[in-house]
């Protein structure tokens, strides 16, 4: 029997019991749709987090003050005061470095605007911060060289901070707020970067590093220096240059370990990708279970179908069907159900991916790879689920089969 004949026969058979065919197909539809939708959500999550990290600054290399070792106890990174504004200035002269922003963080500052207050982190920095950390200005302006030179008490707020202060970007420009009781004038609001999970880059205050040093920290050392590269491919080279420079400037003996550390954006991305890949695989695993259940449904229906058609199988053998003809007939039937289910499932999956995404607050969209994976998995499940019943059918003894009531 040719494949075309098997196809014709299977289609005719499936149409004689449309409800059963539809219910069997539904199992596959749900499995495939889940795969498409959850892969879409997984990929969406990955893209969102990746974009978020990329939004923190492109080609960014973060130099952190090394941990201090006091009495054999290693403190957290940045707890040792080793980086200085002068270090930042020296790094800025290295080849391959595009911009350098010294960063002096003050955690848990209380910000008051009229009767509203909030708590956030203030970063004392320079105008280079905007380009290094990839901040865009929404309203007003970012810090200027002049404000740094003069140590002006001006501040640029993140949009979340503005909202927390019960204000709008337009209304807060030019207003005076107090930070830990010290008045600052708001000169700008940054564009939202969006973010969740990691620290929110939109909940921030930027002020001239000179003002922060004079009013809050004194001439203490920097916690971090943000460095942006001219070319990301030069990362290793720039890293080695900075290492050599800082070791020289800090007068470290060749036996001493670095008193600073560097994290590149690439490394952060790698860590995040690993994490989100785990999430995505977990989602795919759940969807795969749904598909396997659909496959069991097919196997079950096919077994029932074989049972019901024992006499037909006997008759077909009597009129000349070989084992492989019978196998093919039932296998093709199973594969058609799966294929139909896969097509509907892919369409349904495409339709619901966005809905599922918005339900979990992730910008999800169906991916071609996800669709292909779902489709191929469905076919594999169909063939596997259909093979055993088909083989059973083909192995029936024709005499027994013809006698079967």
């Amino acid at each position, binding site marked *: *029997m040719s494949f075309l004949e098997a196809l014709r026969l299977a289609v005719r058979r499936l149409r*004689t019991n449309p409800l059963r065919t539809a219910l069997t197909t539904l199992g596959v539809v749900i499995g495939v749709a889940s795969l498409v939708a959850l892969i879409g959500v997984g990929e969406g999550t990955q893209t969102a987090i990746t974009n978020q990290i990329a939004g923190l600054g492109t080609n960014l290399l973060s130099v952190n003050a090394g941990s201090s070792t006091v009495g054999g106890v290693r403190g957290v990174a940045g707890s040792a005061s080793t980086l200085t504004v002068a270090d930042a200035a020296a790094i800025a002269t290295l080849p391959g470095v595009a911009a350098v922003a010294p960063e002096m963080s003050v955690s848990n500052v209380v910000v008051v605007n009229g009767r509203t207050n909030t708590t956030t982190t203030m970063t004392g920095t320079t105008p280079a911060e905007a380009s290094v950390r990839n901040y865009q200005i929404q309203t007003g302006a970012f810090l200027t060289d002049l404000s740094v030179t003069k140590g002006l008490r001006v501040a640029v707020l993140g949009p979340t901070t503005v909202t927390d202060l019960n204000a709008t970007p337009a209304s807060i420009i030019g207003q005076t707020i107090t930070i830990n009781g010290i008045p600052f004038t708001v000169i700008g609001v940054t564009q939202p970067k969006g973010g969740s999970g990691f620290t929110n880059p939109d909940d921030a205050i930027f002020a001239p590093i000179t003002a922060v040093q004079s009013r809050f920290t004194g001439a203490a050392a920097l916690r971090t220096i943000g460095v942006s590269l001219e070319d990301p491919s030069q990362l290793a080279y720039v890293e080695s240059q900075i290492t050599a420079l800082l070791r020289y400037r800090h007068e470290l003996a060749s036996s001493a370990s670095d008193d600073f550390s560097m994290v590149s954006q690439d490394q952060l991305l790698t860590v995040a990708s690993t994490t989100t890949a785990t999430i995505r695989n977990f989602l795919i695993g759940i969807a795969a279970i749904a598909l396997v259940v659909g496959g069991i449904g097919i196997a079950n229906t096919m077994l029932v179908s074989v049972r019901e058609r024992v006499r037909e199988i006997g008759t077909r053998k009597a*009129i*000349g*069907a070989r084992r492989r003809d019978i196998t093919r007939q039932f296998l093709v039937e199973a594969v058609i159900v799966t294929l139909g289910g896969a097509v509907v499932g892919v369409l349904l999956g495409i339709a619901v991916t966005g809905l599922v995404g918005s339900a979990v607050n992730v910008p999800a969209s169906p991916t071609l790879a996800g669709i292909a994976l779902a489709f191929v998995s469905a076919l594999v499940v169909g063939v596997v689920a259909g093979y055993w019943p088909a083989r059973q059918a083909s192995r029936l003894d024709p*005499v027994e089969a013809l006698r079967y009531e």
Partner: protein
Amino acid sequence: MAEQTVAPQPPLIEGRGITRLYSMGDSEVAALRGVDFSIQMGENVAIIGPSGSGKSTLLHILGLLDRPTAGQYLFAGVDTDTLDDDRLALLRNRAIGFIFQSFNLVSGESALENVAAPLVYAGVKRKERLERAEESLARVGLSDRAHHDPSQLSGGQRQRVAIARALVTRPAVILADEPTGNLDSRSSADVFTLLQELQAEGLTLVTITHDQRIADRAARVLRVEDGMLVEHDGVAPSYLDGAPTQGPTTAPGNPPTGAVVPAAEAAGQARTSIGLAALGLVAEDEQ
């Protein structure tokens, strides 16, 4: 083989010491105990016997649906024991037509599709298949029912569709298992007449039956009892259904149909060669 040198054609069907045992739990039950038989091309043979005598088992073996436990079964001179399952399927497809008591049509498929089904397994193209199925349906007088589902047909019509299906591959032999067993007397007469006509055209016909007329009309009657075979030569025994009081009867006015009109004999020759062509194909494949 000896037969082949003596006769130009071997018997179509030949059994030597055919035994068929079934295991029932620990014990074995013999359905056939070493029966010998020989049926020539174009013969009209009835197999009779009480229920459970082994006649169905015999028909299954004749139809290559079952293999004997012991003994040798030759189909057109080929020892069927040497054929694998696929070759047996091919032989069933090309050389044998089955007619069952319960018709065994596939519902959900039209009469025409049912008739064409054997040609699907013979690899005949769809267009030719349907043409031949239409011819076959026309032969049994059901051209106007071609597109009906079997469930829309009467019992007699269903059995005629089944006969058309058996004829469509132009087989050498038709094996009929109680072909009128599920029919009322009128349908039964139609089917009976049809089978006799086909046989008169040269078809080899082997029928398991309780039907007095079929047994009467057969050129030979083989009686199976307790797994043994007794030759009756046109004499139907008294225990046949519907004729318990008639006693043994020959069939006056119904001469054995092996010797009918010359035209029928010519047609028989044609069929014979067609049947052997199918077998030759099998034998070729074997080498």
